[in-house]
């Protein structure tokens, strides 16, 4: 199996606080990798290392190696914008821009200088179709994105990320603000998307990880306790702490 992303001895400190230590994790192509663990275990922090969103926070120090397609992600001379174009992100709370549905999806390509209307229209339609939103919004492309329902907004945010044609899609608890129906639609969508994309998803829900992921990493206090095939982790956890967490004894 081909590794798209790989981290070696990754550690991260916020000032004096050690958020991640010695994290070694491979992310395989066209697989869904779930990051699970209790609140504050470092799974979101880890996710944000992969597209360097932690750069935005003061006093963050990252050590160790992160490779994307074999190239280092950290360090001087790395083009963050190029990285983020290839490693897209979907956030916990749907956060459409206060502009039209069309403009939301076209935003990323436009910032890269694409101005041609026909090209943009093509990109937007393709992304909306991939995000299974096109049929619901095709007649209201100029309407404000903030008028969509929560689930639709989140699928719009997925479409917005897909419009950049990334290789990897990072999802930070993408369904935690959604109702069960909308959650189900997003999960079905993730199933569909992994044919073309590599997906890393942070989730609080063990059931969700079990349903949609191929591999699972269990984080605790900034360390990876266990990583392996999801079926394996849930059926035969090697570590007692993993077992306790997935059986709901803590977390």
């Amino acid at each position: 199996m081909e590794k798209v992303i790989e981290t070696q001895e990754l550690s991260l400190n916020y000032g004096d606080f050690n958020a991640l230590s010695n994290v070694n994790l491979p992310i395989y192509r066209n697989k869904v990798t779930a990051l699970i663990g209790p609140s504050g275990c470092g799974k979101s922090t880890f996710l944000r290392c992969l597209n360097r969103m932690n750069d935005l926070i003061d006093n963050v120090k990252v050590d160790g190696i992160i490779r994307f397609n074999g190239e280092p992600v950290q360090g001087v001379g790395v083009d963050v914008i190029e990285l983020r174009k290839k490693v897209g992100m979907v956030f916990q709370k749907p956060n459409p821009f206060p502009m039209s549905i069309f403009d939301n999806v076209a935003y990323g390509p436009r910032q890269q200088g694409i101005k041609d209307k026909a090209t943009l229209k093509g990109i937007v339609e393709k992304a909306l179709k991939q995000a299974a939103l096109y049929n619901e919004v095709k007649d209201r492309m100029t309407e404000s994105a903030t008028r969509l329902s929560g689930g639709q907004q989140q699928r719009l945010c997925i479409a917005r990320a897909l419009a950049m044609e990334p290789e990897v899609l990072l999802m930070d608890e993408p369904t935690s603000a959604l109702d069960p129906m909308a959650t189900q639609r997003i999960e079905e969508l993730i199933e569909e998307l992994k044919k073309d994309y590599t997906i890393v998803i942070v989730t609080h829900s063990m059931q969700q990880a079990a349903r949609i992921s191929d591999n699972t990493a269990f984080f605790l206090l900034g360390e990876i306790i266990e990583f392996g095939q999801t079926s394996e982790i849930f059926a035969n956890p090697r570590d007692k702490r993993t077992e306790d967490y997935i059986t709901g004894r803590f977390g």
Partner: protein
Amino acid sequence: MKGTRTSLSQIDTIVGSLLMILALVASSFIVIIAAFITIRGILPFITDNNGLGSVNVLQFLTDTVWLRGTTFLSTAYGAGFVIINTLYIAFLTVLMSFPIGVLTALFIAKVAPRPIAATMRTIIELLASIPSIVFGLVGVGLFLPVIYGIARSMGYSSGGGSSVIATVFVLSLMSIPTITAVAEVSIRQVDESLEQASLALGASPTQTRFKITLLAAKSGIFSGAILAVGRSLGEATAVALVSGNARSGPSFGLFETTATITSTLLQGLKETNGIDYDIRFSLGILLMVVILTTNLGLNFIKRKVGNVHG
């Protein structure tokens, strides 16, 4: 327990009625002021002004000569050019102060390192609290000689520097702190997750600030601009010091002397009498109407702009 609850609810009733009475008193002042100005301001149009004859309303609204003072006692009070000047100057002021104010706010809120941002925020607050007459003094002492020199070197004549441009400069100085302060607050309130989404899409920080942050803060930014327009329309003393108080117009050239509703109203108010005094109240009505309609218009635009994707 029951007794306590009853007395608490009685207090609620009493406080509620007190608040209502206060609110009624406060709002009735507006009615009283408007009524007083209106009644006084109508006099020149309906009386014969001690034999001079009454002022024609249409001429008052459209004519382009204002014969101020008791020297030329007449009914030639045409405020048409004054209205145009007032709106023109407010427009130029916003044109100048809005971009400067908003960009300053963006810098303070998003770009400046924390200590610099804190210092600049204090400076802006201080600037916003300086009385307008001080800005007028700066205009008279600093701007007028410079503008006079520039105008002369370019072959224009200007009334000692008193001009449209001097007025716009002074009003912009006064407006920029207001626009900056209001815009800065609304820029800081923008949901950070929007900016993060933009960065995560590969947009640069600069693209994010201009395309997302300003867009998301536009409603607040617009409110600041409305306040600035209000201040430009309503400012009297500073404008009277640097406008040149022209008696005719309108003045579109930047080095021409000008006159606004407020400066015309103020100029020589206490040294005159008769119709020349009464007509100032008519200008008062005009000012109220102009400010009210401008505010209504801008708020209407704000709602339209804000609702498109808000």
